[in-house]
């Protein structure tokens, strides 16, 4: 599925959080989105997934696209256990009513849990899991409907390096298996290195870098350089913003 975003603008309280943002993610590609905290990354994903309305611009997606999103803070249903969380769309979505038998759902759920490296926790509630486990259950829930556009909001933040690597490999694998286009919002350079094909960088609502991962990491752009080297000096000023 090709995802295209054209001239997207979003205004919150007279402030342009996204200002004329355009990019394209081809089938089987992963776009990394980086930027300071508050630069509009989550807002971008929320508009693509239809949670927020845009103020102007276009989101172009084919008709048969199935968009999934892994939330920054997991957003698991806290009144349901892990099993019911993952099975939720299969059971509750109108078009799936009665399509899957109980056994099939059980099989799909345990298969998805296995994919994110969690097994045998079906009966636990989200509050009984660690933050990283919640995140992974969130991925399992997101991919249960075999989406072809997957949005990840900071998938590796708050995870240990080994689990992060696992998640990164998993993002790559999943993209191949589902032939999906992915957008990964991240602060972590390891995620950009391992799981991403192209990078855009947002600053004050605008795209200030757009290019290949190598170029992003190799200091070709002064914004990218400031981000990669974690420098206070540079074109971006975080204080007072």
């Amino acid at each position, binding site marked *: 599925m090709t995802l295209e975003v054209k001239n997207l603008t979003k205004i919150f309280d007279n402030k342009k959080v996204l200002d004329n943002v355009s990019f394209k993610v081809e089938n089987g590609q992963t776009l990394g989105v980086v930027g300071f905290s508050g630069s509009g990354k989550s807002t971008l994903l*929320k508009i693509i*997934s*239809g*949670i927020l309305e845009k103020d102007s611009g276009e989101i172009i997606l084919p008709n048969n696209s199935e*968009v*999934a*999103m892994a*939330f920054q*803070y997991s*957003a*698991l*249903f*806290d*009144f349901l256990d892990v099993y019911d969380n993952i099975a*939720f*769309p299969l059971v*509750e*979505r*109108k*078009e799936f009513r009665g399509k899957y038998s109980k056994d099939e759902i059980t099989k799909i759920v345990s298969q998805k849990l296995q994919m994110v490296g969690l097994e045998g926790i079906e009966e636990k509630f989200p509050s009984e899991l660690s933050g990283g486990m919640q995140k992974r259950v969130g991925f399992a*829930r997101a991919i249960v*409907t075999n989406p072809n556009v997957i949005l990840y909001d900071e998938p590796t933040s708050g995870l240990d390096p080994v689990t992060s690597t696992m998640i990164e490999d998993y993002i790559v694998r999943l993209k191949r298996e589902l032939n999906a286009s992915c957008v990964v919002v991240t602060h972590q350079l390891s995620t950009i290195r391992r799981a991403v094909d192209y990078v855009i960088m947002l600053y004050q609502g605008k795209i200030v870098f757009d290019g290949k991962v190598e170029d992003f990491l190799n200091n070709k752009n002064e914004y990218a350089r400031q981000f990669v080297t974690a420098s206070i000096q540079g074109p971006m000023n975080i204080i007072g913003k």
Partner: protein
Amino acid sequence: MFELNKTFTYQRFVLLWGQIEEFLILIGNLGKDFVDVIKRILSLEINLNETIEQSKRFAYDSLPISLTIVSMTSAIIAMQLAPELARQGGADYTGMLSALVMVRELAAVMSAFAIISMVGASFASEIASMAVTEQISAMKVLKVDPIAYLFVPRFIAGALFMPVVFIVSGFCGLVCAGLVSNWCADLSLLNYFTSLWHGLYIRDIFIALLKSSFFGATIALISSSCGYSAHGGAKEVGLATTKAVVSSFLAIAMWDFIFASVFYL
């Protein structure tokens, strides 16, 4: 220098205007949510499991508190009424009066108040906390309609089971009033229950059932709607719950007034 925007009156006015604005937004949300809920019900988008679950909360879980409140209130009224009536030679009317008061007003209104504090508050806070932790956003991305999943079952539970709560608590209230009259005015139970039938009209009961159904649906709708429109953090959950409880109380008073004027004026 006189600065208008620093005067006390001006600041009060701004505060008041803010509250009016908030009230209008609430009314707008309620109207929209009501239309959405009715649309889902008409197209039979009813989640049976959730409806059963919510009905259980509405009717069964709330019974201890609604029974207690209605029974206590009717006992107190009987305590005040029965000795006075006996003194004035009208002891025979105790049962009748109790039935009139209980069926026409007390049972429905008092159990509605109990339900607001018990069920309405928990509907509002749980939906608000889902809203602020993005669970409702997640639901939308998973293409599950939050109105059909969250609102409709609660609305149906309220409309169907509030009348049940009314019947049960009204019955208990009447029995309590009889026992108390017997205890503090030496009124015989036989006498009380014989007189009670004179105050019990089928019409009153039907009106009260209808009214309870309106109460239940209103409490469910207001609570869900206030919770749903919460955004921000934990503080907003508290605010949404307060708003739901206060608005529900007001709405019940309003419905009660409308029913009394339409059917008894």
